């Protein structure tokens, strides 16, 4: 019998390859565990062409194999489509500390000095999930999670 709680705990040990302060459960990539014998980890891509998607699958596979769950499968699920709402509240604070303005309806805010006096530099940032902004007070550029 596979312990689902244990599987989820294992998944929470896997950090996003591009944003190594939040794990793939907080990010909303892990949808849950599907019952079955053996069960499957259900995951969803953030962006369809995101190169990290394949890498995350490999990291999950390695984690499962190392823990002796080589019979547990990985299932891709597209619908409902991932959106920034899937990112947990606890991850928002971690993103801010890491220097990324978390997604949400709020005015873009500089994660370094907290100023809301900012400008958009580019709708496309260093990864598919981020846009590039700059703070007009402390003058530092910063990434913001795209609302999606």
């Amino acid at each position, binding site marked *: 019998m596979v312990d689902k709680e244990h599987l989820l705990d294992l998944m929470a040990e896997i950090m996003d390859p591009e944003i190594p302060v939040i794990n793939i459960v907080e990010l909303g990539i892990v949808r849950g565990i599907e019952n079955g014998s053996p069960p499957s980890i259900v995951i969803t891509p953030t962006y369809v*062409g995101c190169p990290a998607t394949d890498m995350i699958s490999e990291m999950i596979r390695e984690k499962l194999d190392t823990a002796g769950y080589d019979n547990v499968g990985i299932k891709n699920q*597209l*619908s409902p*489509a991932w*959106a920034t709402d899937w990112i947990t509240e606890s991850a928002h604070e971690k993103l801010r500390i890491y220097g990324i303005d978390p997604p949400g309806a709020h005015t873009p805010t500089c994660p370094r000095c907290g100023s809301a006096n900012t400008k958009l530099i580019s709708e*496309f940032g260093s990864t598919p999930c981020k846009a590039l902004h700059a703070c007009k007070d402390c003058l530092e550029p910063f990434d913001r999670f795209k609302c999606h």
Partner: protein
Amino acid sequence: MSVAEKYIGAKTPSKPETIYMLRLADNTLILGQRLSEMCGHAPEMELDIALTNISLDLIGQAKLLFEHILTLEDLAPNADVLAMTRPLEQYTNCLFVAQPNVDFAHIMLKQYLFSTMQKLQYEALLESRDETLAAIAEKSLKEIAYHIRFAKTWLLRLGDGTEESRTRMADALDCLWRFTGEMFVRDAGLADAVNAGLSTDFTQHYDGWTLEVESVFTEAGGLTPPETARMIMGGHQGQHDDNLGHILADMQFMQRSYPGLKW
């Protein structure tokens, strides 16, 4: 079976579902490939990143479609072989997506016209009998909204910008407009897909689309599409112009020289 036979070429789809999905997949693959040519060549760093991000989205959408096609019909040993190694006449993308980049105005106008069409085309898949296809459409639509916003901003900026930027955008419209009709043609491929419950007929929105893009042209420095005696078509039937051949030469050279080669 020789190595080349195993890794080069794919069967032609025979079901309404796979025929139509291959068209969708080829559209995004070829436009994505075109955009990827700009990697390292855009006017500034942020635009370079933006163009390659959009390219990545489009190729990602194509990947999902090719993989799904293979679950419905055994056309090739894997999605890479299906996507990359067919002879030219087996590609069924519209001529529009293979048009050359020329300059930044062309690239942005092409993206705007394609993405606004793609939005309608994919919304018509949301109620598809094929749940996987509906999910791919739902996912892609979130990205398409972003592509439209980005391309529209630049269309307005350039059309309503300097004399040179406006001239370039006007030239782009003159060149590209004649290929837009094929994106909305209600041919047998689409009609069969509609009958199979795969898609609704999105071409009913052609007039609405035309009005919408023309109002944006007006806002973009008063651009007007050229008088077009007839739209140029043929891609859906595999009758392509020179442009696709050059793209395929780039895409296929390595696999045709060394079949089965892995990165």
